[in-house]
């Protein structure tokens, strides 16, 4: 498919690349889809090194795609949205907020990463102040918000995809949200690597991957630098 898209006149590259975090998100999805949720999960927990042959094999698949010229040169992610909307690129791995950034939201659709069995999501934390007089009631509220009952109300308001798998797909107000919710049924939920792994990793990971995009031959060097940044 990518080879066919590349041949279309006017298309600069099949896939748009946003420098920094969008590339990091793409690679997370690639690892999740091609390596599987278990491999990705072990990378997040530090059980598996980024230089491990199992991980490197997945990256080598990616390097083949990079060397084939299927990705654009990394550039500012917001500027890439404009070029994507103008038809310079066919695909862009981006958040659902892209709907509000393109002139015609009806002109874009989405599909899950082929073969993926997991989805990633940012992890937010409920924080209860130490000095609160009612810590137990606060915990009770958090427990309530996690129930299918509360999340059904929440999802029905729009703009929020429920993490509780018991929320019925029919409650989502827009067709796009229903499609997203349907696609997530049966998926394993995992975190985003640069919010889970601390230390230097959130700095080094997107930067080294941007380097890989420009110079795929430096794969070993990139993986070593990423592994060195894991605390």
């Amino acid at each position, binding site marked *: 498919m990518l080879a066919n898209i590349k041949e279309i006149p006017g298309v600069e590259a099949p896939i748009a690349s946003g*420098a*920094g975090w969008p590339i990091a998100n793409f690679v997370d999805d690639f690892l999740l889809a091609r390596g599987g949720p278990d491999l990705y999960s072990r990378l997040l927990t530090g059980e598996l090194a980024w230089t491990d042959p199992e991980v490197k094999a997945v990256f080598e698949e990616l390097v083949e795609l990079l060397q084939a010229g299927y990705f654009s040169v990394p550039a500012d992610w917001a500027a890439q949205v404009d070029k994507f909307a103008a038809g310079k690129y066919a695909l862009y791995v981006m958040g659902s907020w892209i709907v509000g950034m393109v002139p015609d939201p009806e002109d874009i659709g989405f599909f899950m990463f082929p073969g993926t069995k997991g989805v990633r999501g940012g992890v937010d934390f409920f924080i209860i102040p130490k000095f609160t007089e009612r810590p137990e009631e606060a915990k009770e509220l958090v427990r309530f918000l996690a129930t299918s009952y509360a999340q059904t109300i929440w999802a029905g308001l729009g703009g929020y995809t429920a993490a509780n798998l018991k929320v019925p797909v029919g409650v989502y107000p827009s067709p796009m949200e229903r499609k997203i919710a349907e696609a997530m049924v049966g998926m394993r939920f995992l975190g985003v690597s640069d919010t889970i792994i*601390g*230390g230097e990793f959130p700095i080094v990971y*997107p*930067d080294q991957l941007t*380097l890989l995009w*420009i110079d795929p031959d430096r794969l070993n060097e*990139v993986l070593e630098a990423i592994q060195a940044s894991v605390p």
Partner: protein
Amino acid sequence: MPRPLDGDSPIQAISLLHIVRGNMKQRRILFLLPALMLLATFAFYPTVEAIRMSFWSWEGRQMLGFTGLSNYADLFARRDFFNPARFPTLGPPYGALIHSLIWMVIYLPMVAMLGLVFAVLLRDVRGSPVIKSMILIGMVVPMVVGGIVVRFMFDDPAGIINGLLRFMGLGDFTRTWTAFPNTALPALILGSVWFRVGFAMIIYSAGLELIPEELYEAARIDGASRWKTFRYITVPMVKPCTLIVVIMSTIEVFRMFDMVYVATFGGPGGSSMVLGLLLYLQAFFRLPPDIGVASAIATFLILMATAMAYFLVRRTE
């Protein structure tokens, strides 16, 4: 004797009056006091504190204990700070320290030379205030905006630099400069030169006004060429201006942060990392922050800038 001000005791009013009417030394101290207090609060105290913090070990934002020079040892062991093994044959990244030095080596002469050339060329040109104002625009643009402008200037195919290269028949050299390790740093340096050359031009313009016209007349009578007049009269006479430009530009390079943050974030692969950005990343981006190393970088910056300024001032004296 004047009446004491409301709320002042007679003794306080008398002592203040005594100082104001007193000897010159006391008056100087009184008038310098507000400026000294501001300097002490916002310059001396943070500097001393940063130096002190660099000798302590940290856990997150909690100070643990005195650790001597270990933060400095950690700093010099980091490849993103100092990576001479790659310099120059293997290509970037060379580490923030070498990148900042490269920036200085290119930026200082270019800013000084272009500033002087513009000042001399526009000295007696009709409409020069308008042209100078246009050159000065770069100086009034915030560096954050400058970073965005640099990114788009060097973009391919939209950027003006690549457009110029194509126009000159050098289409093979076009690329998104900020995206490639070998060209990211040069793009930022050239962009920063453009944004700061207006400052040098203004300093030199003021300096040129102070050169006695008699010197140029004497040179004309002696049959000196325009180049010799420039080389042997203009350049030596604006030496104090060059000193100011060099010192200010040196400080500018060492504290370079915002343009790099916006244009490349130090990448790709750390190839445009500079000291100011590395400091920020260690103190505010890393999880948990490494305050010890960040303070060591800050101390290093302070020492480098101070040493450079001291050396230049002494040399001029």
